[in-house]
Protein backbone atom coordinates (compact mmCIF):
# COMPACT_ATOMS: atom_id res chain seq x y z
CA UNK A 1 0.00 0.00 0.00
CA UNK A 2 1.03 3.53 -0.58
CA UNK A 3 0.21 4.78 2.90
CA UNK A 4 3.76 4.28 4.06
CA UNK A 5 5.61 6.08 1.30
CA UNK A 6 7.06 9.35 2.44
CA UNK A 7 5.79 12.40 0.56
CA UNK A 8 9.34 13.43 -0.35
CA UNK A 9 9.96 10.05 -1.92
CA UNK A 10 6.88 10.49 -4.07
CA UNK A 11 7.98 14.02 -4.89
CA UNK A 12 11.41 12.97 -6.17
CA UNK A 13 10.08 9.88 -7.87
CA UNK A 14 7.55 11.97 -9.77
CA UNK A 15 10.34 14.21 -11.04
CA UNK A 16 12.96 11.62 -11.93
CA UNK A 17 12.20 7.92 -11.76
CA UNK A 18 8.56 8.13 -12.80
CA UNK A 19 8.55 11.28 -14.89
CA UNK A 20 5.03 11.50 -16.25
CA UNK A 21 6.19 12.68 -19.66
CA UNK A 22 9.16 10.44 -20.23
CA UNK A 23 7.94 7.22 -18.62
CA UNK A 24 4.21 7.46 -19.24
CA UNK A 25 4.46 9.59 -22.39
CA UNK A 26 1.58 11.79 -21.28
CA UNK A 27 1.19 15.42 -22.33
CA UNK A 28 3.00 14.84 -25.62
CA UNK A 29 1.07 17.25 -27.84
CA UNK A 30 2.00 20.43 -26.05
CA UNK A 31 5.44 18.94 -25.36
CA UNK A 32 6.05 18.67 -29.10
CA UNK A 33 4.30 21.89 -30.09
CA UNK A 34 5.73 24.36 -27.59
CA UNK A 35 9.30 23.12 -27.16
CA UNK A 36 10.97 25.35 -29.73
CA UNK A 37 12.28 27.97 -27.35
CA UNK A 38 13.45 27.70 -23.76
CA UNK A 39 11.64 30.88 -22.79
CA UNK A 40 8.19 29.80 -23.92
CA UNK A 41 8.74 26.25 -22.65
CA UNK A 42 9.54 27.63 -19.22
CA UNK A 43 6.26 29.56 -19.23
CA UNK A 44 4.29 26.50 -20.23
CA UNK A 45 6.20 24.36 -17.73
CA UNK A 46 5.38 26.74 -14.88
CA UNK A 47 1.71 26.76 -15.88
CA UNK A 48 1.67 22.97 -15.82
CA UNK A 49 3.37 22.84 -12.39
CA UNK A 50 0.78 25.17 -10.93
CA UNK A 51 -2.28 23.60 -12.52
CA UNK A 52 -1.16 20.03 -11.76
CA UNK A 53 -0.53 20.79 -8.11
CA UNK A 54 -3.82 22.56 -7.52
CA UNK A 55 -6.00 20.22 -9.57
CA UNK A 56 -4.57 17.13 -7.91
CA UNK A 57 -5.63 18.58 -4.56
CA UNK A 58 -9.05 19.67 -5.84
CA UNK A 59 -9.65 16.33 -7.50
CA UNK A 60 -8.51 14.47 -4.41
CA UNK A 61 -11.06 16.38 -2.35
CA UNK A 62 -13.82 15.78 -4.87
CA UNK A 63 -12.95 12.11 -5.01
CA UNK A 64 -12.71 11.64 -1.27
CA UNK A 65 -15.74 13.69 -0.26
CA UNK A 66 -18.13 13.35 -3.20
CA UNK A 67 -17.38 10.30 -5.30
CA UNK A 68 -16.34 7.81 -2.59
CA UNK A 69 -19.21 8.40 -0.15
CA UNK A 70 -21.76 8.22 -2.97
CA UNK A 71 -20.07 5.17 -4.46
CA UNK A 72 -19.63 6.96 -7.76
CA UNK A 73 -15.92 6.37 -8.39
CA UNK A 74 -16.67 5.28 -11.95
CA UNK A 75 -17.60 8.90 -12.69
CA UNK A 76 -14.10 10.11 -11.86
CA UNK A 77 -13.09 10.73 -15.48
CA UNK A 78 -15.93 13.14 -16.12
CA UNK A 79 -15.72 14.86 -12.76
CA UNK A 80 -11.95 15.29 -12.92
CA UNK A 81 -12.05 16.73 -16.42
CA UNK A 82 -14.81 19.18 -15.57
CA UNK A 83 -12.96 20.34 -12.47
CA UNK A 84 -9.69 20.76 -14.35
CA UNK A 85 -11.36 22.70 -17.16
CA UNK A 86 -13.25 25.00 -14.81
CA UNK A 87 -10.17 25.62 -12.71
CA UNK A 88 -8.00 26.44 -15.70
CA UNK A 89 -10.59 28.83 -17.08
CA UNK A 90 -11.02 30.57 -13.76
CA UNK A 91 -7.27 30.83 -13.35
CA UNK A 92 -6.88 32.37 -16.78
CA UNK A 93 -9.50 35.02 -16.02
CA UNK A 94 -7.87 35.91 -12.73
CA UNK A 95 -4.34 36.10 -14.12
CA UNK A 96 -5.48 38.21 -17.04
CA UNK A 97 -7.17 40.62 -14.69
CA UNK A 98 -4.37 40.85 -12.17
CA UNK A 99 -1.17 41.14 -14.13
CA UNK A 100 -0.26 41.60 -17.78
CA UNK A 101 3.25 40.35 -17.13
CA UNK A 102 2.03 37.17 -15.48
CA UNK A 103 -0.53 36.68 -18.21
CA UNK A 104 2.10 37.06 -20.88
CA UNK A 105 4.48 34.67 -19.10
CA UNK A 106 2.00 32.06 -17.93
CA UNK A 107 -1.66 32.78 -18.58
CA UNK A 108 -1.42 32.59 -22.34
CA UNK A 109 -0.55 28.89 -22.07
CA UNK A 110 -3.46 27.92 -19.89
CA UNK A 111 -5.91 27.17 -22.71
CA UNK A 112 -3.27 24.85 -24.16
CA UNK A 113 -3.22 22.68 -21.07
CA UNK A 114 -6.93 22.52 -20.28
CA UNK A 115 -7.07 19.19 -22.02
CA UNK A 116 -3.49 18.15 -21.33
CA UNK A 117 -3.62 14.43 -20.63
CA UNK A 118 -0.70 14.60 -18.19
CA UNK A 119 -2.85 16.64 -15.82
CA UNK A 120 -5.74 14.22 -15.95
CA UNK A 121 -3.21 11.39 -15.72
CA UNK A 122 -1.83 12.72 -12.45
CA UNK A 123 -5.32 12.86 -10.94
CA UNK A 124 -6.08 9.33 -12.07
CA UNK A 125 -2.78 7.85 -10.88
CA UNK A 126 -3.17 9.36 -7.44
CA UNK A 127 -6.57 7.70 -7.14
CA UNK A 128 -5.34 4.35 -8.44
CA UNK A 129 -2.35 4.45 -6.08
CA UNK A 130 -4.58 5.51 -3.16
CA UNK A 131 -2.44 8.47 -2.15
CA UNK A 132 -3.32 10.62 0.83
CA UNK A 133 -3.97 14.34 0.42
CA UNK A 134 -0.39 15.22 1.34
CA UNK A 135 1.01 12.55 -0.95
CA UNK A 136 -1.26 13.74 -3.77
CA UNK A 137 -0.11 17.30 -3.33
CA UNK A 138 3.53 16.33 -3.64
CA UNK A 139 2.80 13.90 -6.42
CA UNK A 140 1.12 16.70 -8.40
CA UNK A 141 3.90 19.14 -7.64
CA UNK A 142 6.62 16.64 -8.51
CA UNK A 143 4.93 15.53 -11.72
CA UNK A 144 4.56 19.13 -12.78
CA UNK A 145 8.20 19.87 -12.10
CA UNK A 146 9.20 16.69 -13.92
CA UNK A 147 7.13 17.66 -16.93
CA UNK A 148 8.55 21.19 -16.92
CA UNK A 149 12.08 19.80 -16.63
CA UNK A 150 11.55 17.54 -19.61
CA UNK A 151 10.11 20.25 -21.85
CA UNK A 152 12.77 22.81 -20.91
CA UNK A 153 15.51 20.26 -21.59
CA UNK A 154 13.89 19.45 -24.91
CA UNK A 155 13.64 23.13 -25.81
CA UNK A 156 17.31 23.58 -25.02
CA UNK A 157 18.19 20.71 -27.33
CA UNK A 158 15.89 21.97 -30.06
CA UNK A 159 17.38 25.46 -29.88
CA UNK A 160 20.79 23.97 -30.55
CA UNK A 161 19.32 21.72 -33.18
CA UNK A 162 17.95 24.69 -35.10
CA UNK A 163 21.50 25.27 -36.32
CA UNK A 164 22.14 21.61 -37.13
CA UNK A 165 21.65 19.98 -40.52
CA UNK A 166 18.85 17.52 -40.03
CA UNK A 167 17.80 15.10 -42.79
CA UNK A 168 14.75 16.59 -44.47
CA UNK A 169 12.43 13.71 -43.69
CA UNK A 170 13.21 13.91 -39.99
CA UNK A 171 12.95 17.66 -39.47
CA UNK A 172 10.31 18.88 -37.01
CA UNK A 173 8.25 16.34 -35.08
CA UNK A 174 10.26 13.35 -36.33
CA UNK A 175 13.58 14.29 -34.78
CA UNK A 176 11.81 15.62 -31.69
CA UNK A 177 10.21 12.26 -31.03
CA UNK A 178 13.54 10.50 -31.47
CA UNK A 179 15.16 12.88 -28.99
CA UNK A 180 12.26 12.38 -26.58
CA UNK A 181 12.90 8.65 -26.83
CA UNK A 182 16.60 9.05 -26.04
CA UNK A 183 15.75 11.34 -23.12
CA UNK A 184 13.32 8.71 -21.84
CA UNK A 185 16.09 6.12 -22.04
CA UNK A 186 18.31 8.37 -19.95
CA UNK A 187 15.60 8.83 -17.35
CA UNK A 188 15.09 5.06 -17.27
CA UNK A 189 18.48 4.93 -15.61
CA UNK A 190 16.78 6.24 -12.45
CA UNK A 191 14.07 3.61 -12.45
CA UNK A 192 13.90 1.21 -9.56
CA UNK A 193 15.62 3.61 -7.18
CA UNK A 194 12.38 4.62 -5.52
CA UNK A 195 9.24 2.57 -5.34
CA UNK A 196 6.06 4.61 -5.31
CA UNK A 197 3.20 2.19 -5.78
Amino acid sequence: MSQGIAFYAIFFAAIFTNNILLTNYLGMCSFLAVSREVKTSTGLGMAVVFVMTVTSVLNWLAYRYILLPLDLTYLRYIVFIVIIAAFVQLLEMIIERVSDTLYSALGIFLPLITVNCAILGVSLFMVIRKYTLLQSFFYGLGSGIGWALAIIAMAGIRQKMAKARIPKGLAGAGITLIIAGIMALAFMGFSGMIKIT
Partner: protein
Amino acid sequence: MTVAIQLLIGIGAICGVSTVLAIITVIADATIANYGDVKIRINDDKEVVVSGGRPLLGSLMEQKIFIPSACGGRGSCGLCKVKVTSDAGDYLPTELPWISEEEKKQNIRLSCQLKIKKDIAIQIPEELFNVKEYITEVASLRDLTYDIKEATLKLIEPGEIKLRAGQYIQFQVPEYELSKESIYRAYSVASQPSVTDRVELEIRLVPNGICTTYVFNHLKEGERITINGPYGEFFLRESEREIVFIAGGSGMAPIKAILYDMREKGIKRKATYFFGARAVKDLFLVEEMRELESSLEGFTFIPALSEPSESDRWEGETGLITEVLDRHIGTGDDTEAYLCGSPGMIDASVKVLTEKGIPEELIYYDKFA
Protein backbone atom coordinates in the same frame (compact mmCIF):
# COMPACT_ATOMS: atom_id res chain seq x y z
CA MET B 1 -34.53 -0.60 -8.10
CA THR B 2 -31.04 -0.11 -6.73
CA VAL B 3 -29.80 0.43 -10.28
CA ALA B 4 -32.30 3.24 -10.70
CA ILE B 5 -31.19 4.85 -7.46
CA GLN B 6 -27.54 4.47 -8.45
CA LEU B 7 -28.33 6.12 -11.75
CA LEU B 8 -30.15 8.99 -10.08
CA ILE B 9 -27.32 9.57 -7.63
CA GLY B 10 -24.81 9.52 -10.47
CA ILE B 11 -26.77 12.00 -12.54
CA GLY B 12 -27.35 14.14 -9.47
CA ALA B 13 -23.67 14.21 -8.58
CA ILE B 14 -22.55 15.13 -12.11
CA CYS B 15 -25.23 17.79 -12.34
CA GLY B 16 -24.34 19.13 -8.92
CA VAL B 17 -20.64 19.40 -9.64
CA SER B 18 -21.22 20.89 -13.07
CA THR B 19 -23.78 23.39 -11.79
CA VAL B 20 -21.53 24.62 -9.02
CA LEU B 21 -18.59 25.02 -11.41
CA ALA B 22 -20.78 26.66 -14.05
CA ILE B 23 -22.13 29.16 -11.52
CA ILE B 24 -18.62 30.01 -10.36
CA THR B 25 -17.47 30.47 -13.96
CA VAL B 26 -20.44 32.62 -14.90
CA ILE B 27 -19.96 34.82 -11.85
CA ALA B 28 -16.24 35.11 -12.62
CA ASP B 29 -16.99 35.99 -16.22
CA ALA B 30 -19.34 38.77 -15.15
CA THR B 31 -16.98 40.18 -12.53
CA ILE B 32 -13.33 39.27 -12.98
CA ALA B 33 -13.42 39.11 -16.77
CA ASN B 34 -15.69 42.14 -17.18
CA TYR B 35 -13.74 45.02 -18.65
CA GLY B 36 -16.71 47.14 -19.65
CA ASP B 37 -16.87 48.88 -23.01
CA VAL B 38 -13.67 49.90 -24.73
CA LYS B 39 -13.13 52.17 -27.71
CA ILE B 40 -11.16 51.19 -30.78
CA ARG B 41 -9.88 54.19 -32.70
CA ILE B 42 -9.16 53.27 -36.30
CA ASN B 43 -6.86 55.29 -38.58
CA ASP B 44 -7.50 58.38 -36.46
CA ASP B 45 -10.86 59.01 -38.07
CA LYS B 46 -13.27 56.36 -36.87
CA GLU B 47 -14.18 55.07 -33.46
CA VAL B 48 -16.09 51.95 -32.55
CA VAL B 49 -17.20 50.76 -29.13
CA VAL B 50 -16.93 47.07 -28.28
CA SER B 51 -17.10 45.08 -25.08
CA GLY B 52 -13.63 44.68 -23.61
CA GLY B 53 -11.55 41.64 -22.76
CA ARG B 54 -11.79 39.91 -26.10
CA PRO B 55 -9.31 39.61 -28.98
CA LEU B 56 -9.03 42.55 -31.34
CA LEU B 57 -9.64 40.43 -34.44
CA GLY B 58 -13.07 39.23 -33.33
CA SER B 59 -14.09 42.62 -32.02
CA LEU B 60 -13.30 44.23 -35.36
CA MET B 61 -15.13 41.48 -37.19
CA GLU B 62 -18.23 42.26 -35.18
CA GLN B 63 -17.96 45.81 -36.49
CA LYS B 64 -17.79 44.46 -40.05
CA ILE B 65 -14.12 45.27 -40.40
CA PHE B 66 -12.43 42.19 -41.74
CA ILE B 67 -8.73 41.67 -41.16
CA PRO B 68 -7.54 38.84 -43.40
CA SER B 69 -6.99 35.69 -41.33
CA ALA B 70 -6.67 32.08 -42.39
CA CYS B 71 -6.70 30.14 -39.14
CA GLY B 72 -9.71 31.72 -37.50
CA GLY B 73 -7.87 33.36 -34.63
CA ARG B 74 -5.79 30.53 -33.19
CA GLY B 75 -2.49 32.25 -33.75
CA SER B 76 -1.26 29.69 -36.23
CA CYS B 77 -1.31 31.56 -39.55
CA GLY B 78 0.22 34.90 -38.60
CA LEU B 79 -1.82 36.88 -41.13
CA CYS B 80 -4.00 39.12 -38.99
CA LYS B 81 -1.33 41.73 -38.30
CA VAL B 82 -2.45 45.17 -37.25
CA LYS B 83 -0.45 48.26 -36.38
CA VAL B 84 -1.23 49.53 -32.89
CA THR B 85 -0.49 53.18 -32.22
CA SER B 86 -1.46 53.31 -28.55
CA ASP B 87 0.09 51.40 -25.67
CA ALA B 88 -1.27 47.86 -25.69
CA GLY B 89 1.16 46.10 -23.39
CA ASP B 90 4.03 43.79 -24.24
CA TYR B 91 4.11 41.19 -26.96
CA LEU B 92 2.67 37.84 -25.96
CA PRO B 93 4.76 34.72 -26.50
CA THR B 94 2.13 33.47 -28.94
CA GLU B 95 2.66 36.51 -31.17
CA LEU B 96 6.44 36.48 -31.27
CA PRO B 97 6.97 33.67 -33.79
CA TRP B 98 5.13 35.77 -36.40
CA ILE B 99 6.59 39.22 -35.72
CA SER B 100 9.89 40.33 -37.26
CA GLU B 101 12.26 42.81 -35.64
CA GLU B 102 11.20 45.41 -38.19
CA GLU B 103 7.54 44.90 -37.31
CA LYS B 104 8.31 45.11 -33.61
CA LYS B 105 9.67 48.61 -34.10
CA GLN B 106 6.40 49.62 -35.73
CA ASN B 107 4.39 47.94 -32.96
CA ILE B 108 2.62 45.56 -35.31
CA ARG B 109 0.59 43.03 -33.36
CA LEU B 110 -1.25 39.82 -34.10
CA SER B 111 -4.85 40.90 -33.71
CA CYS B 112 -6.19 37.45 -32.81
CA GLN B 113 -3.94 37.23 -29.75
CA LEU B 114 -4.13 40.81 -28.55
CA LYS B 115 -7.00 41.17 -26.13
CA ILE B 116 -8.28 44.69 -25.68
CA LYS B 117 -8.84 45.64 -22.09
CA LYS B 118 -8.63 49.39 -22.50
CA ASP B 119 -9.08 51.95 -25.26
CA ILE B 120 -6.82 51.29 -28.20
CA ALA B 121 -5.79 53.06 -31.41
CA ILE B 122 -4.92 51.07 -34.51
CA GLN B 123 -3.90 51.65 -38.12
CA ILE B 124 -5.18 49.36 -40.82
CA PRO B 125 -4.76 49.70 -44.58
CA GLU B 126 -7.45 52.04 -45.81
CA GLU B 127 -8.64 49.53 -48.36
CA LEU B 128 -9.46 46.91 -45.72
CA PHE B 129 -11.48 49.42 -43.90
CA ASN B 130 -13.10 50.63 -47.06
CA VAL B 131 -13.84 47.67 -49.27
CA LYS B 132 -17.59 47.48 -49.40
CA GLU B 133 -20.35 46.50 -51.71
CA TYR B 134 -22.29 49.40 -53.19
CA ILE B 135 -25.67 49.40 -54.87
CA THR B 136 -25.56 52.05 -57.60
CA GLU B 137 -27.78 53.48 -60.27
CA VAL B 138 -26.58 54.38 -63.74
CA ALA B 139 -26.91 58.18 -63.77
CA SER B 140 -25.56 58.78 -67.26
CA LEU B 141 -23.93 57.07 -70.22
CA ARG B 142 -21.90 59.15 -72.64
CA ASP B 143 -19.86 58.30 -75.71
CA LEU B 144 -16.30 59.57 -75.33
CA THR B 145 -15.22 58.09 -78.66
CA TYR B 146 -16.78 55.55 -81.02
CA ASP B 147 -15.53 52.74 -78.78
CA ILE B 148 -15.17 54.28 -75.32
CA LYS B 149 -18.11 55.05 -73.08
CA GLU B 150 -18.21 57.00 -69.88
CA ALA B 151 -20.60 55.51 -67.32
CA THR B 152 -21.49 57.50 -64.23
CA LEU B 153 -22.83 55.39 -61.37
CA LYS B 154 -24.64 57.19 -58.59
CA LEU B 155 -24.17 55.49 -55.22
CA ILE B 156 -27.42 54.46 -53.56
CA GLU B 157 -26.46 52.24 -50.63
CA PRO B 158 -24.03 53.14 -49.07
CA GLY B 159 -24.31 56.63 -50.46
CA GLU B 160 -20.64 57.58 -50.19
CA ILE B 161 -17.34 56.07 -51.25
CA LYS B 162 -13.89 56.92 -49.97
CA LEU B 163 -11.02 56.14 -52.30
CA ARG B 164 -7.63 57.30 -53.50
CA ALA B 165 -7.18 58.78 -56.94
CA GLY B 166 -6.11 55.96 -59.27
CA GLN B 167 -7.83 53.05 -57.49
CA TYR B 168 -10.31 50.74 -59.15
CA ILE B 169 -13.63 49.12 -58.37
CA GLN B 170 -15.22 45.87 -59.50
CA PHE B 171 -18.30 46.07 -61.64
CA GLN B 172 -20.79 43.24 -61.32
CA VAL B 173 -22.17 42.18 -64.69
CA PRO B 174 -25.54 40.49 -64.23
CA GLU B 175 -26.23 37.30 -66.14
CA TYR B 176 -27.24 37.85 -69.75
CA GLU B 177 -26.77 36.12 -73.08
CA LEU B 178 -22.94 36.15 -72.93
CA SER B 179 -22.62 34.96 -69.34
CA LYS B 180 -24.58 32.35 -67.43
CA GLU B 181 -23.71 33.80 -64.05
CA SER B 182 -22.89 37.25 -62.79
CA ILE B 183 -19.20 38.09 -63.06
CA TYR B 184 -16.94 40.90 -61.90
CA ARG B 185 -14.69 43.12 -64.00
CA ALA B 186 -12.32 45.75 -62.66
CA TYR B 187 -12.45 49.37 -63.82
CA SER B 188 -10.40 52.33 -62.70
CA VAL B 189 -12.38 55.20 -61.27
CA ALA B 190 -12.05 58.35 -63.38
CA SER B 191 -13.61 60.72 -60.87
CA GLN B 192 -11.41 62.26 -58.22
CA PRO B 193 -11.74 61.33 -54.49
CA SER B 194 -13.55 64.56 -53.61
CA VAL B 195 -16.47 63.22 -55.65
CA THR B 196 -17.91 60.83 -53.08
CA ASP B 197 -21.49 60.31 -54.21
CA ARG B 198 -20.76 58.71 -57.57
CA VAL B 199 -18.07 56.97 -59.60
CA GLU B 200 -17.20 57.62 -63.21
CA LEU B 201 -15.88 54.74 -65.28
CA GLU B 202 -14.38 54.78 -68.76
CA ILE B 203 -15.16 51.56 -70.56
CA ARG B 204 -13.70 50.61 -73.91
CA LEU B 205 -15.47 48.13 -76.14
CA VAL B 206 -13.60 44.87 -76.37
CA PRO B 207 -15.00 42.63 -79.14
CA ASN B 208 -16.93 39.84 -77.39
CA GLY B 209 -15.88 41.13 -73.98
CA ILE B 210 -18.52 40.05 -71.48
CA CYS B 211 -18.63 43.26 -69.51
CA THR B 212 -17.97 45.73 -72.30
CA THR B 213 -20.59 44.15 -74.55
CA TYR B 214 -23.06 44.40 -71.73
CA VAL B 215 -22.24 48.05 -71.13
CA PHE B 216 -22.45 48.92 -74.83
CA ASN B 217 -25.53 46.90 -75.78
CA HIS B 218 -27.62 46.47 -72.67
CA LEU B 219 -26.82 48.95 -69.93
CA LYS B 220 -29.40 51.72 -69.59
CA GLU B 221 -29.70 54.84 -67.55
CA GLY B 222 -31.55 54.22 -64.31
CA GLU B 223 -30.43 50.57 -64.11
CA ARG B 224 -29.21 49.22 -60.76
CA ILE B 225 -25.63 47.94 -60.77
CA THR B 226 -23.66 46.44 -57.89
CA ILE B 227 -20.01 47.36 -57.50
CA ASN B 228 -17.41 46.68 -54.82
CA GLY B 229 -14.14 48.30 -53.92
CA PRO B 230 -12.01 50.34 -53.88
CA TYR B 231 -8.85 48.36 -54.54
CA GLY B 232 -5.37 48.92 -55.87
CA GLU B 233 -1.98 50.44 -55.24
CA PHE B 234 -2.00 52.69 -58.30
CA PHE B 235 -1.98 56.13 -56.72
CA LEU B 236 0.36 59.10 -56.65
CA ARG B 237 3.31 58.62 -54.26
CA GLU B 238 4.33 61.53 -52.10
CA SER B 239 7.63 63.05 -53.22
CA GLU B 240 9.06 66.08 -54.98
CA ARG B 241 10.07 64.15 -58.12
CA GLU B 242 9.02 65.05 -61.61
CA ILE B 243 6.12 62.95 -62.87
CA VAL B 244 5.57 61.19 -66.19
CA PHE B 245 2.07 59.87 -66.90
CA ILE B 246 1.57 57.49 -69.81
CA ALA B 247 -1.80 56.15 -70.91
CA GLY B 248 -3.65 54.77 -73.86
CA GLY B 249 -7.37 54.32 -74.49
CA SER B 250 -9.42 53.94 -71.33
CA GLY B 251 -6.15 54.10 -69.36
CA MET B 252 -7.09 57.75 -69.24
CA ALA B 253 -9.41 57.08 -66.28
CA PRO B 254 -7.05 56.74 -63.29
CA ILE B 255 -4.68 59.40 -64.65
CA LYS B 256 -7.55 61.84 -64.98
CA ALA B 257 -8.55 61.14 -61.37
CA ILE B 258 -4.97 61.71 -60.20
CA LEU B 259 -4.64 64.99 -62.16
CA TYR B 260 -7.88 66.48 -60.83
CA ASP B 261 -6.88 65.34 -57.36
CA MET B 262 -3.50 67.09 -57.74
CA ARG B 263 -5.24 70.30 -58.73
CA GLU B 264 -7.61 70.15 -55.76
CA LYS B 265 -4.78 69.46 -53.35
CA GLY B 266 -2.51 72.10 -54.88
CA ILE B 267 0.26 69.65 -55.78
CA LYS B 268 2.49 71.61 -58.17
CA ARG B 269 5.02 69.02 -59.27
CA LYS B 270 6.28 69.13 -62.84
CA ALA B 271 4.13 66.61 -64.67
CA THR B 272 3.94 65.48 -68.29
CA TYR B 273 1.10 63.35 -69.57
CA PHE B 274 1.68 61.30 -72.73
CA PHE B 275 -1.54 59.94 -74.18
CA GLY B 276 -1.21 57.48 -77.03
CA ALA B 277 -3.93 56.95 -79.65
CA ARG B 278 -4.21 55.87 -83.23
CA ALA B 279 -6.05 58.80 -84.82
CA VAL B 280 -8.02 61.88 -83.82
CA LYS B 281 -11.20 59.81 -83.53
CA ASP B 282 -9.53 57.92 -80.63
CA LEU B 283 -8.78 61.05 -78.66
CA PHE B 284 -11.10 62.22 -75.90
CA LEU B 285 -11.22 64.66 -73.00
CA VAL B 286 -8.65 66.77 -74.86
CA GLU B 287 -10.35 70.04 -73.88
CA GLU B 288 -10.40 69.00 -70.21
CA MET B 289 -6.69 68.23 -70.37
CA ARG B 290 -5.90 71.52 -72.11
CA GLU B 291 -7.87 73.29 -69.42
CA LEU B 292 -5.79 71.47 -66.78
CA GLU B 293 -2.62 72.74 -68.44
CA SER B 294 -3.65 76.27 -67.53
CA SER B 295 -5.10 75.53 -64.08
CA LEU B 296 -2.55 72.97 -62.84
CA GLU B 297 0.88 74.52 -62.54
CA GLY B 298 3.70 72.50 -64.10
CA PHE B 299 1.38 70.24 -66.12
CA THR B 300 1.81 69.50 -69.84
CA PHE B 301 -0.46 67.29 -71.94
CA ILE B 302 1.11 65.57 -74.94
CA PRO B 303 -1.29 63.52 -77.06
CA ALA B 304 0.47 61.42 -79.67
CA LEU B 305 -1.08 59.73 -82.71
CA SER B 306 0.46 56.68 -84.31
CA GLU B 307 -1.63 56.67 -87.51
CA PRO B 308 -3.26 60.07 -88.04
CA SER B 309 -5.44 60.10 -91.15
CA GLU B 310 -5.24 62.77 -93.88
CA SER B 311 -8.49 64.35 -92.81
CA ASP B 312 -7.26 64.69 -89.19
CA ARG B 313 -4.95 67.58 -90.13
CA TRP B 314 -2.91 66.59 -87.06
CA GLU B 315 -0.14 68.97 -86.07
CA GLY B 316 0.78 67.40 -82.77
CA GLU B 317 3.15 64.55 -82.01
CA THR B 318 3.08 61.51 -84.23
CA GLY B 319 4.58 58.06 -83.90
CA LEU B 320 4.38 55.21 -81.43
CA ILE B 321 4.20 56.26 -77.79
CA THR B 322 7.67 54.84 -77.23
CA GLU B 323 9.15 57.08 -79.96
CA VAL B 324 7.43 60.13 -78.52
CA LEU B 325 8.67 59.28 -75.03
CA ASP B 326 12.18 58.87 -76.34
CA ARG B 327 12.07 62.36 -77.87
CA HIS B 328 10.67 64.15 -74.83
CA ILE B 329 12.15 62.57 -71.74
CA GLY B 330 15.62 63.54 -70.65
CA THR B 331 17.90 61.16 -68.81
CA GLY B 332 17.99 61.17 -65.03
CA ASP B 333 16.70 59.22 -62.09
CA ASP B 334 14.69 61.96 -60.40
CA THR B 335 11.44 61.06 -62.12
CA GLU B 336 8.45 58.91 -61.22
CA ALA B 337 6.31 57.29 -63.88
CA TYR B 338 2.65 56.19 -63.78
CA LEU B 339 1.43 54.02 -66.62
CA CYS B 340 -2.00 52.73 -67.47
CA GLY B 341 -2.94 50.85 -70.61
CA SER B 342 -2.52 47.61 -72.51
CA PRO B 343 0.27 45.23 -71.45
CA GLY B 344 2.07 45.73 -74.77
CA MET B 345 2.14 49.49 -74.41
CA ILE B 346 3.26 49.29 -70.79
CA ASP B 347 6.07 46.82 -71.38
CA ALA B 348 7.43 48.85 -74.31
CA SER B 349 7.19 52.11 -72.35
CA VAL B 350 8.84 50.69 -69.21
CA LYS B 351 11.76 49.64 -71.40
CA VAL B 352 12.22 53.20 -72.70
CA LEU B 353 11.85 54.69 -69.21
CA THR B 354 14.45 52.43 -67.64
CA GLU B 355 16.84 53.17 -70.50
CA LYS B 356 16.40 56.82 -69.63
CA GLY B 357 17.58 56.06 -66.12
CA ILE B 358 14.31 55.97 -64.19
CA PRO B 359 14.65 53.31 -61.47
CA GLU B 360 12.20 50.43 -61.85
CA GLU B 361 10.84 50.92 -58.34
CA LEU B 362 9.67 54.40 -59.32
CA ILE B 363 7.62 53.09 -62.25
CA TYR B 364 4.04 52.28 -61.24
CA TYR B 365 1.50 50.75 -63.56
CA ASP B 366 -1.96 49.27 -63.96
CA LYS B 367 -2.08 46.70 -66.74
CA PHE B 368 -5.31 45.96 -68.54
CA ALA B 369 -4.94 42.28 -69.18
